[in-house]
């Protein structure tokens, strides 16, 4: 299924290498022009050609101030994974259907793949990498281990971030309630029974 105009795909430099070299973490300013390559190939519709197509954005990720100049098309998920090297959040469907990219933005669980990074000026983002307290796991991380709540592990970071949202929202009154309020996270290994138990365990711990 085509998800990108072809012109945006070709670049001599791999995207991951390119963006990694043009981003700064911890308050410094990034100066790279991330959109130069795709635009030179003329993919922009007429209305956009004159306009500014990248934007500088400052946000806090796992307690650290981050400033980056991003192509306006960059999702929060791609900012995390490709620009900041935080590859815990996963790209499953990239369409808001699987929940593998779930992170907290200003305390609320959201789909990172449907969030444009450019919209996050001043936001506070928490990812799976931001949960550990020193060398101690978050109680829900520990619960996933205790309950053996994963097989391949691909959906697990999203499950845990969504579970934290579920716990904070107070939707842990019963296994049925947890199942309903965790339904935005798919697990193709089928670990739902144990995922539900893990959220129950963390709810008791609180």
């Amino acid at each position: 299924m085509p998800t990108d105009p072809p012109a945006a795909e070709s670049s001599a430099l791999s995207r991951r290498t390119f963006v990694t070299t043009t981003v700064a973490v911890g308050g410094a300013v990034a100066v790279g022009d991330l959109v130069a390559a795709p635009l030179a190939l003329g993919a922009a519709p007429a209305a956009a050609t004159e306009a500014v197509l990248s934007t500088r954005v400052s946000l806090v990720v796992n307690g650290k101030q981050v400033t980056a100049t991003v192509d306006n098309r960059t999702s929060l998920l791609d900012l995390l994974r490709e620009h900041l090297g935080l590859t815990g959040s996963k790209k499953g469907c990239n369409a808001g259907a699987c929940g593998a990219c779930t992170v907290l933005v200003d305390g609320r669980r959201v789909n990172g793949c449907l969030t444009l990074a450019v919209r996050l000026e001043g936001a506070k983002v928490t990812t799976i990498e931001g949960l550990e307290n020193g060398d101690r796991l978050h109680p829900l991380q520990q619960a996933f281990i205790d309950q053996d709540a994963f097989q391949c592990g691909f959906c697990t970071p999203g499950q845990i971030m969504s579970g934290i949202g579920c716990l904070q929202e107070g939707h842990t009154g019963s296994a049925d309630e947890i199942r309903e309020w965790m339904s935005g996270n798919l697990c193709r290994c089928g670990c739902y029974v144990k995922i539900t138990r893990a959220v129950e365990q963390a709810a008791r711990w609180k």
Partner: protein
Amino acid sequence: MYPFSYTKVSDVPAAVKAGSDGGRYIAGGTTLVDLMRETVERPGALVDISALPLRDIAATKGGGLRIGALARMAEVAAHPTVRALYPVISQALELSASPQLRNMASIGGNIMQRPRCTYFRDVTAACNRREPGSGCAAREGFNRTHAILGTSDHCVATHPSDAAVAFAALEATVHLLGPGGERTVGFADFLLRPGATPQREQNLRPGELITAVEIPSHPRPLRSGYLKVRDRQSYEFALISAAVALHVRGGVIQTAKVAAGGVGTVSWKLSAVERRLIGQRPSEALWTQAAEVAAEGAQPLTHNGFKVELLKRTVERQLRVVGGTR
């Protein structure tokens, strides 16, 4: 995804100005970003309206309800006033999408949702909504989830919103602000049936912005609720849904507000069902008799004939749930 410029506006006049200049409004972005990635949507300029002061949720003095267009689905569903006055709205919202998406998506954006038809979303398929004049691949294609009411030769896609079904039942109004000033449109006139111009989905003029959805007052006590029937138990669009609100006094139904989702090209008001209910005493037989006319005028396609009977049964069951048997 095609490149676009990005502007965040901080007040409503600036938003309307940017929208009138050809900018595309973005609120929660859960539909728009998804469709931009599929290249179904190709806006050259995005206008971020998320900072506008359009998030209040409050009872109106007549006993109705006003929901700011930027209130998030999750906020509206959980709001004590909404839960108390119109459970049907809370239920419709909580049966929609996922908790993550409900934390992002706005009420204005919810009723602006574009079709979930797979041919609409596939840029290699014929679709009159996406590309007027290209044809409709769904008519003779895989159309099990498509509409049986309000269709045309040009389009058979359903409107995907659950909240819109509750709004249609309750005869909400949509408040708009554009370059020409404010205006209000009844919900029945806001979503447009495809006819010969399926690409025109809402009664909106260039640059117009949804500022609020308002539910008029209904006689109290009002019992209401939403039932959604789908292929999986959660996180799925409706095959059929029913929004029902009833006011019973002196043992007689005085007011009946009923609409269905998953069946129409727009959220479908069931006026014939309402007429069969008003002035009658609640009974098992009445729910069956009223639901019998739910699918009047239905035109099933190759694969969705089951929706005719399922619509009747869904309406009947929800009448029983909301109305009880006495």
